[in-house]
């Protein structure tokens, strides 16, 4: 369904008048396939490029190199309306992603209006139908975003994303701004809608416990690349890449009596404008050997999983 081939996105920026150009390699050669109906969880630390990749899959950022295909069709050749019928986003912050001056039914109806061709009465009907599906009572339709709670706003954002009946939804940290009790409501809603409407999700999150719960497969991103990509079961049961292991170790589950783990990553911080030679993870890797400093690992496929680590060979 989604096919990403060596997708690259670089940003150029000058830091000062006389300094050299700084190139941020936000996404630096990502490839994957995602089957229809799957949920690909993308995890990684802030700055690893996961949101940039999400925006590329949405068609909001053209790749600097490489290709993104949906159903065999290059995303770059689709026009905006076609793309909107295929892929829709749900963003992190329902406070800034909804127009504060529009009523809920206008917000949800806007994608339909932008497509043109539909009579206003039909637009209204479809919008109201979708609001009901995401669990918002009719009375909410005439409210403004400021009159809604965070969870209700996120439901509006989901209704807006689904009103065109897209096949793919890119969820970028959809529950990070919400309280835990509301987070669970939204995750359950997303799971129900996927089953009902046969959706495919790209689910970007820094919260591994959440990703484990919703994803069918998981990609771990580090400095613009997938360092490990496997089914959710395999990745959580048997993480192979040292970075994946460190990430999993740092999840603090609500189980008392277990000490806080020593993740062993040191305090060097990854900088996408200054990617280390060899394996890009080597300065933080607790298992790095000399080879890791000079030799760039290539992705290796085995048992349906891909790992990018010299020690895996």
């Amino acid at each position: 369904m989604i096919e990403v081939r060596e997708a690259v996105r670089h940003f150029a920026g000058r830091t000062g008048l006389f300094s050299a150009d700084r190139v941020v390699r936000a996404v630096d050669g990502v490839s994957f396939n995602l089957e229809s109906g799957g949920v690909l969880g993308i995890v990684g630390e802030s700055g690893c490029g996961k949101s940039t990749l999400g925006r590329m899959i949405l068609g909001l950022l053209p790749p600097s190199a490489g290709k993104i295909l949906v159903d065999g069709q290059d995303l770059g050749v689709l026009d905006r309306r076609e793309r909107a019928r295929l892929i829709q986003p749900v963003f992190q912050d329902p406070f800034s992603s909804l127009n504060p001056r529009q009523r809920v039914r206008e917000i949800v109806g806007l994608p339909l209006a932008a497509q043109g061709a539909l009579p206003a009465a039909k637009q209204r009907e479809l919008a109201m139908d979708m609001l009901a599906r995401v669990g918002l009572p009719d009375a909410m339709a005439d409210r403004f975003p400021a009159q809604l709670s965070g969870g209700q706003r996120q439901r509006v954002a989901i209704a807006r994303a689904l009103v065109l009946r897209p096949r793919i939804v890119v969820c970028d940290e959809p529950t990070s701004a919400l309280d835990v009790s509301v987070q669970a409501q939204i995750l359950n809603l997303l799971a129900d809608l996927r089953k009902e409407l046969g959706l495919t999700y790209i689910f970007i999150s820094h919260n591994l416990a959440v990703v484990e719960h919703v994803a069918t497969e998981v990609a771990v991103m580090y400095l613009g690349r997938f360092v490990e990509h496997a089914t959710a079961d395999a990745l959580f049961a048997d993480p192979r890449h040292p970075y994946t292991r460190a990430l999993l170790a740092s999840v603090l589950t609500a189980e008392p009596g277990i000490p806080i783990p020593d993740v062993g990553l040191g305090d060097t911080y990854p900088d996408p404008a200054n990617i280390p030679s060899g394996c890009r993870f080597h300065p933080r890797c607790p298992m790095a050997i000399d080879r890791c400093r000079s030799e760039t690992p290539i992705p290796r496929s085995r048992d349906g999983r891909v790992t990018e680590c010299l020690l895996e060979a």
Partner: protein
Amino acid sequence: MKPVLEIANLRVGFSDGTAAVRGISLNVLPGETHCLVGESGCGKSVTALSVMSLLGRGAKRSAEVMRFHDRDLTRMSDREMARLRGDKMAMIFQEPMTSLNPAYTVGSQMAEVLERHRHVSRAQGLDRAAALLGHVGITAPGMRLSQYPHQLSGGLRQRVMIAMALMCEPELLIADEPTTALDVTVQAQILRLLQGLQRQLGLALLLITHDLGIVARMAQRVSVMYAGQIVESATAEALFAAPAHPYTQGLLNCVPIPGKTPRDQPLGSIPGVVPRIGAGFIGCAFRDRCTHATTACSGDIPRRSVAQHHETLCTMAPS
């Protein structure tokens, strides 16, 4: 053991009529981590700010008891409070970028703490700052002293905040969501650091968080806040093993535990939203979201003891 911080019946209201904190009582013992846990708007940060006397104008605070050791915080003047704050009582905030001064170097703002409270020279202040930066795991502390906050990563900034809070060897440290703005890997490092320092220095730590994972791993005692009240308080083991209040039970069901929570089943969730509570509200604030609610929940709710050191504010708790 005598508590370092003792609070009884603390109330905070705002001029718009909101009752943010509605009569909470808690003690923090020396060397203990006490977690105050709850969702946004439950009043946990307001509690911390009122202990530090940092509430803005328009907030009204009252308490039967609010003591730091033997000193009555409710009767202190602003000047006395300013002397205590940053000295024996220190606080760490969530977002280190907004709580560090961007216009001063790390060394300058750290040294200032010691200059103000201990009246030492700048050089002595900088020496102590360098030593503490090393202590919180910052390599090359000498170089960091001359850097500005924007030159540091989020994790380093939070380490600087912690080091700064330790400048005067506080006995009570209040940490308000100290790792919420950080990546999970950095969060684990910072919490390990806090736990190590707390054990080593015998700090009393009041840790405010919404994250039950942090509570489970850090707390000896837990107070669960909802709509301005402590609805349950217990030791960490007791709270996770046998939560008594329906809100606590609901919260625990909402968080997936990798490998334990079944993946193809919905998560537990709490319907509805946190209500807005005005002055004069009577009854259980959770009743509209609670599946066990009865008519008794609209009346006065007794605080009951479930077991030793385990209390809950609920009508259905076993008596």
